[in-house]
């Protein structure tokens, strides 16, 4: 056997450094979640453990409306983005070479590179005109905007999964009398499913916590969870905000964990 890979644990101070990093990363969140259980009304003044603020949040109509909007928006945007990303990934990995294949890869990933605020301003200018012309002020604009920046997040795990897949499986299916569609349905899609699931969940989380795009493009009266929280922060700072933030964090953590489990299994 060749010499074992370089063992990072043997370096002096690595453990201290790692623990330090984790503390800096997670202490603020621990404080936030801890404060959400504070029974007292005044922030920073501990008065015992209570679920009071969670109960209050669940009875808060404005919060519930914002949460509903956010979940609907994230689901639809992630769904459309995942379907588009799957098609793009199939085209860039499975189709015979065609001109502009590299360009497609670049265009699909473009929202990762363009500053979000630039895209938001650009969309604001255009969509303001569209809103005026059509009179439609529904959730459609946000769905479209969220879909654009969700696509690259959905695209990455799907493409990685497709590239790692043994091409001879699809050749074998064709050899065994399967049509292209049958091959896709019985071979490619089942093997791709963990990648698609991971892509969907990533896109969902990214949409769920977006502030910039939502804040710029929402119509009057529309609130997503993050924009609602921003508004509340400006007005009254109560521990209810901590409770709502903790709930949002919980959803994100659950989804990211789910996505991790999906890609890890039979990878």
């Amino acid at each position: 056997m060749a010499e074992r890979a370089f063992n990072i644990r043997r370096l002096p101070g690595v453990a201290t450094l790692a623990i330090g990093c984790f503390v800096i990363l997670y202490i603020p969140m621990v404080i936030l979640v801890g404060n959400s259980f504070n029974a007292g009304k005044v922030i920073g003044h501990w008065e015992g453990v209570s679920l009071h603020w969670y109960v209050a949040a669940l009875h808060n109509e404005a919060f519930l409306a914002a949460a509903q909007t956010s979940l609907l928006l994230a689901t639809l945007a992630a769904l459309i983005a995942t379907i588009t990303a799957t098609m793009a990934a199939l085209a860039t990995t499975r189709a015979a070479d065609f001109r502009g294949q590299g360009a497609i890869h670049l265009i699909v990933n473009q929202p990762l590179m363009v500053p979000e605020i630039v895209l938001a301003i650009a969309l604001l200018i255009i969509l303001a005109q569209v809103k005026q012309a059509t009179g439609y002020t529904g959730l459609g604009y946000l769905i479209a905007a969220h879909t654009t920046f969700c696509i690259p997040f959905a695209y990455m795990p799907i493409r990685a999964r497709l590239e790692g897949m043994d091409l001879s499986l699809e050749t074998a299916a064709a050899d065994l009398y399967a049509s292209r569609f049958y091959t896709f349905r019985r071979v490619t899609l089942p093997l791709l499913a963990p990648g698609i699931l991971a892509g969907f969940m990533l896109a969902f989380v990214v949409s769920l916590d977006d502030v910039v795009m939502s804040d710029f493009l929402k119509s009057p009266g529309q609130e997503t969870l993050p924009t609602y929280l921003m508004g509340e922060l400006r007005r009254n700072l109560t521990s209810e905000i901590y409770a709502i933030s903790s709930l949002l964090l919980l959803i994100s953590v659950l989804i990211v964990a789910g996505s991790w489990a999906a890609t890890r299994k039979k990878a």
Partner: protein
Amino acid sequence: MLDIRDLTKQFGKGDSAVTALHQVSLSIAEGEFFTLLGPSGCGKTTLLRLIAGFEPPSGGALVLDGKDIALMPPNQRPVNTVFQSYALFPHMTVAQNVGFALEAQGRPKAEVARVVEKMLALVQMTHLRDRKSAALSGGQQQRVALARALAPQPRILLLDEPLSALDMKLRKEMQVELKRLQQETGLTFIFVTHDQEEALTMSDRIAVMNGGRLQQIASPRELYDLPENRFVASFIGESNFLMAQKLAGMIEIEGSKTALPSGFAAAYDGPVIVMIRPEHVVLGQGPSDAIRLTAQVERLVYFGTDTHIHMRLRDGTPLVARVQNALRGGAIAKVGDSVPVAFPQDALRLLPDTEA
């Protein structure tokens, strides 16, 4: 049954084009175990992929049962492949893998189930029918891949180096198994390998390929006994190549002459290459029509059943003789000895003096 006519395959275009197959023509008969043999890059796998339909040919025809299938998509050809990597569907069970083709063809469920059971029994995998294919050993995957390709009852079964991933012992077992399957089903097998021993022991006929060209098509015995050129002679078995002079119906090596072996009436006189297998080289005087020379022993290599004696002729040409080890008696020769060697006339083969 399968007629391959002037089949040509080029990859790439213009100046960078690479020709993988040069006008290959051959015919394969019903029920034949036909092997494509050659070193890697000789075009054997390309030919197999053209027959399977994974690549379109650049020219020529592929006629199966009187119909040109050269441009037919793979899922419409009555031809199935056992892949080198097996390519089993990892998310399906053994039974689902075997039933895949029949389901893709839309056969009734009862028929699919019946054929799957029959095929699993044929390859002795019934007990693992519900196992995921990823959880199988190499030999088991091999059997499933075979059953999967046989299930739809193809006209031809293509096998792309299916044994190369197995260890030596398993490979020998699968060789016997494959031959048994082929004889039991009466199916036409086209087998691709770079292993000459595998080809010799299993095939009815072998096509030797090199550089995208057919070198010779013959039975294993003919191929070994009567190679048509130097490539075939050196690729199949071991050979000694000797420079000789051909003159008036005689051949001469280092001054010793014998009559030209029958069937080798080359048109011109002059230098030729003579081939003799190591097991035909005689240490000693040999028969009266033999070419007799003297060689110096350089090295002895013991192989159990026989000993390879590496020698040099007076002009420096290397020569190997293979002598069976006797039960009793000492060494056949010693390093440094000058020994008489003889080439019996009927063991000599004249080869066209192409490819050095």
